[in-house]
């Protein structure tokens, strides 16, 4: 099976220590995490992990089951890049005098969909979001103008063709501890996603 980027989405309780438990699942198998983002979800008390790894689907499927086995994890899905909408955010710090003097820079920023976040005498910070090649591209554009500093966030991804996880969670809570099977039926593209 071919290795490719997979986006793992885990819905979890907001518990101290869970990040470590999830990270261990990757590290004990010597799998590098390309990107990891965790933040509160649209549901109060539920956090959402977005994890990107480069692996075969067989490995990803097994890893997802191991993550889902953790007591505080509600549900885990995995998707290829084609199945998700994903973004990364980048901040670029450049000298303000050069920006001010050369209109070309401003146009390049506009062409790259960037916006100014802070403008100071000594530097200006721009922000852009997009796929890796898009944010990388702006680095190349800004480097000749004295890029001082650059930072990029982890990837966040949202599943295409989804009604949202909160409907699922409502169902999940209503049926607990009933014996009703919870499958992934809320997703339109059932074959493309993982269900326990």
């Amino acid at each position, binding site marked *: 099976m071919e290795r490719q980027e997979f986006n793992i989405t885990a819905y979890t309780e907001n518990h101290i*220590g869970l990040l470590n438990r999830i990270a*261990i699942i990757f590290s004990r198998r010597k799998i590098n995490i390309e990107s990891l983002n965790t933040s509160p979800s649209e549901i109060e008390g539920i956090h959402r992990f977005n994890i990107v790894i480069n692996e075969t689907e067989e490995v990803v499927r*097994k890893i997802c*089951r191991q993550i889902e086995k953790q007591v505080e994890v*509600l549900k885990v899905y995995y998707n290829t890049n084609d199945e998700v909408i994903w973004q990364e955010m980048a901040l670029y710090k450049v000298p303000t005098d050069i920006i001010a003097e050369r209109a070309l820079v401003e146009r390049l920023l506009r062409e790259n969909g960037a916006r100014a976040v802070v403008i100071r005498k000594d530097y200006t910070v721009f922000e852009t979001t997009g796929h890796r090649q898009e944010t990388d591209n702006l680095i190349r554009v800004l480097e000749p103008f004295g890029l001082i500093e650059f930072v990029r966030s982890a990837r966040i991804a949202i599943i295409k063709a989804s009604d949202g996880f909160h409907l699922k969670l409502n169902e999940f809570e209503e049926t607990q*501890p009933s014996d*009703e*099977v919870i499958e992934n039926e809320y997703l339109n593209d059932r074959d493309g996603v993982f269900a326990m």
Partner: protein
Amino acid sequence: MSTQAQPVLEATTAETREISGAEVLLRGLLAEGVDTIFGYPGGAILPIYDALYDFKEELNHVLVRHEQGGIHAGQGYARASGKVGVVFATSGPGATNLITGLADAQIDSTPLVCITGQVFAHLLGSDAFQETDVINITAPVTKWNYQITEASEIPGILAKAFYIARSGRPGPVLIDITKNAQLDKIPFAGYEPCTHIRSYRPAPVVRPQAVTQAADLINQAQRPLVLWGQGVVLGAAEREFRAFIEKSGIPAAWTILGAGVLPADHPLNVGMLGMHGNYGPNVLTNECDVLIAIGMRFDDRVTGRLDKYARQAQVIHLDIDPSEIDKNVATTVAVWGDCKQTLPMLTRQVAERTHTAWRQRFAEFQAEEVDVVIREALFPTSAELTMGEVVQQLNELTQGEAILVTDVGQHQMVTCRYARLNESRRHITSGGLGTMGFALPAAIGAKFGQPERTVVAIIGDGGVQMTIQELGTLMQTGIAVKIIVLNNQFLGMVRQWQELFSERRYSFVDIQSPDYVTVARGYRIEGQSVSDRAALGPALQAMLAHPGSYMLEVMVAQEQNIFPMVPQGCSVSEIRLK
């Protein structure tokens, strides 16, 4: 869905009053039905031990000699009784000494609740005296863990811990409690058991269509083979399993943690799987057309080389843990769920069969194994004593009624092969982790878990020296555990590998022993050492007849090998008889 006996859960008092976190904990343990605790005190868990002083009548605390002994005793207790083992340890070294037992319990699915003391909450992260990051250290080897920093958390977390430890696929849980949380007083009105956690599904939902698919495959099979593991024991599904086997007429083989579910002399019990398992089930795994795995996890000691394992077979896997499905062996049909529930569903749909010709194949392999290996192992013609004959004579004397607790090594494999187990929970061993030093403390725990039953620890001369200090626990508690040390003056299994695969380069395996009988006497435990055949029977009888604990050292052949054997990296059908 619980796979363990439900405890009696009672709120201990209706009135709300202020008590310490430590007392809340002990009242919670009582409400969970705990009667025995294995532990070792220390500074950070002192408030709990202080509170325990007032609960001496209700809670039997066993003072072990090392925390590793404490947790192995907890495992032995849990495995023998089917209840949750409870262990206390202090912070820092006390907690880190639990790691081996936690890892062992995790891989063998043993329900434990370990309580560790921790430094005051305001000292966390300051490298305070005896502070370690127990939560992060134990995360990979626990089913769940939690650090309590406020007394008010204790009842809820304790209830959650017991629920998680005993439900679904059982496992070890650790609660780390800071000293201030043990000392602080909180209003306490009673103890509420936990029956539901939003993000935790103890057992997956059974899909009837998968059961039907499995039944169809089984009904079409000409050469089906059942492999069963500890899942049947944990699910308390022995009766359901037997009904399935007897109706379907399918020969069945077992992993070492599944031993005893089907009696040793049952006509459909075709023996033990794995590296030192029986000849027939290993070879015929690669000839069966449908392989039905029940509550077992295709450990590499069972499968040997995976790319040559049962490639011809359609595989049906019944398991409570979805992450075990397809983990090592790809399945044709996965039946998720507690086998207590799924096996009767399957039994209803399978046809009554006898599979006479197919079963004859196992009998032929068995006859060959008896000729080449078993007869000489059990009834040797050489002058030296064999481990097999010790187990054989013990069988005859105990009639399969004793609980046998084994350590890890050659003696373990011999006991697994030759003990005639007729019930589950009669053999306790460290399966997945292979922990030397397990048997002596686990036997102590087993005796507390099943006080009416004879408990015999069978240990090698290597393993017994790893936790020999627990003889002190035997001395102090006065319980009767029979200890057989099979002394071949080697780390026998390692020596066997060195003989077979490293051209007899016996690198650091000739381990010297103390005079075990003198050591035992130092702990006021009776014993004797035997080295000739005529003395063996009387010595075993003397050991069993003795009212207290007893140490019997048996000097056995130094360079005896355990066969059959699937060499590392080989397929199960390449199993060697010699």
